[in-house]
């Protein structure tokens, strides 16, 4: 009886450790997926990467947080960028619990007049934003200025993030 309990406890400890390790790995890779300055041509990272957990998500997207938490949220890393000194943007990398959770969030907004782009499992590009999902990750990049270059520049940044997420 005692041995069974010890085995069960050991199994539980290993399982918890694996879960923690897996979670940390995903959280770390989400943060690392945000490119440094000039890693993507023309893009400068203008701020520190900030991360938010389930407990602090409402500090970042108060009012929008519940939707992510309900779907299955693990963390988000976000950073500000500037393209060629003129287009400001924010990139968010959400780590969801699984692919379905990422899809739930992705599908919650209508595609409207989005352009389809080849990014991740599904993607949409608008004139001032690019959204894609890949596995448990949901990436949203929004620009604060519209110009003829904006969409292409955002797509290049998104491609760089996707490449890092797939490593």
């Amino acid at each position, binding site marked *: 009886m005692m041995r069974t309990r010890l085995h069960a406890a050991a199994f539980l400890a290993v399982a918890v450790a694996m879960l923690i390790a897996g979670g940390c790995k995903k959280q770390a890779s989400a943060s690392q997926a945000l490119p440094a300055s000039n890693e993507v041509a023309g893009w400068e990272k203008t701020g520190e990467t900030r991360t938010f957990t389930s407990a602090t998500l409402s500090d970042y997207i*108060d*009012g929008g947080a519940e*939707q992510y938490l309900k779907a299955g949220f693990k963390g988000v890393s976000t950073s500000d960028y500037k393209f060629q000194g003129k287009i400001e943007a924010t990139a968010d990398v959400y780590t969801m619990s699984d692919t379905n959770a990422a899809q739930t969030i992705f599908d919650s*907004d209508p595609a409207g007049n989005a352009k389809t782009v080849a990014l991740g499992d599904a993607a949409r590009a608008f004139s001032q*934003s690019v959204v894609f999902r890949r596995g448990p990750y949901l990436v949203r990049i929004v620009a*604060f200025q519209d110009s003829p270059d904006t969409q292409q520049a955002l797509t290049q940044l998104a491609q760089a993030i996707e490449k890092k997420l797939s490593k």
Partner: protein
Amino acid sequence: MSDRQGTNRRDFLKSCVAGTVALGAGEVLAFASSVQPAKSKVVIAKDAMLRRSGTIDPNRMLALLDRAMQTSFGSHNALEPWKKMVRPGQVVGLKVNTIAGRGLSTNVTLVAAITERLQQAGIKPYDIVIWDRTGHELERAGFPLSSAAGKVRCIGTDAVGYEATPEKFGTASSCLSKILTRTCDVVINVPLLKDHEEAGMTASMKNMYGVIHNPGECHANGCNPAVADVNMLPTIRKKVRFTICDATSACYQGGPGYKPEYVWRPDSLIVGSDPVALDYTAWQIIDRKRLEKGLKALAAAGRTPKYIATAADVHHRLGANDPNQISIVEV
């Protein structure tokens, strides 16, 4: 504090009037009488030429603000509405909304126009306080922080904190920003028009979530009755006098965060003293845009902003949500 919980907005204004007569301050009496007509007046002022090369023209913004305020107060000149609302010596807070960053926050040019008129109405620059939850959010939205003497202040609650003791009404039990409780005598609510995933939509009343320490706990059941309850908190009822809702840019889907694909530019201001009537009117504007874009109206999408009806019910009486009791004036 708790003795106010049974009173409504009309009672509060009556008490203001009584106090005013006792003090002999005629302007506040005029304000009280002008903001409680038979119907709640909501003014929508629009300027199709507000922007020049995509950027808001400050002169046209000032003119738009004047048109909105003068229509709301039935005034013949630009300063009269402000003189009815505030008095020299009072500290006037402008509660902006900056959580979504620069793309979807209260417009800086609008706030500059409001501070200009307040100063012309006799409010000293230092007695004007632009504020929101955090300094970081204010700066990201384009409001440089300032506490310098002789200048308009711009501060986040994170710099001064929240009261230790919560105020309570119904489901709401929240510690309020010290900027509201200790710094400001009067607050003008300066939110913006947004779709909201949980609440349905947000304009006037929901902006008070930026005043409390625990907004994250107030989003259950479509923020209902929490929005109405928060707006019943005594200090909020006492100090928040008027709403100037920024509808120069607004979003009809995907809020409250900034998703530029769902942002449009009504180039309008929506103003009024009845936050419920204003929110009801704002809801109709969001719904019209959603239908125009081929989306379901909020109710059909399962996101009715139920808190608006709650705010008008017999337990709250914060204003009117019956269209027959609302006078919408478009100028």
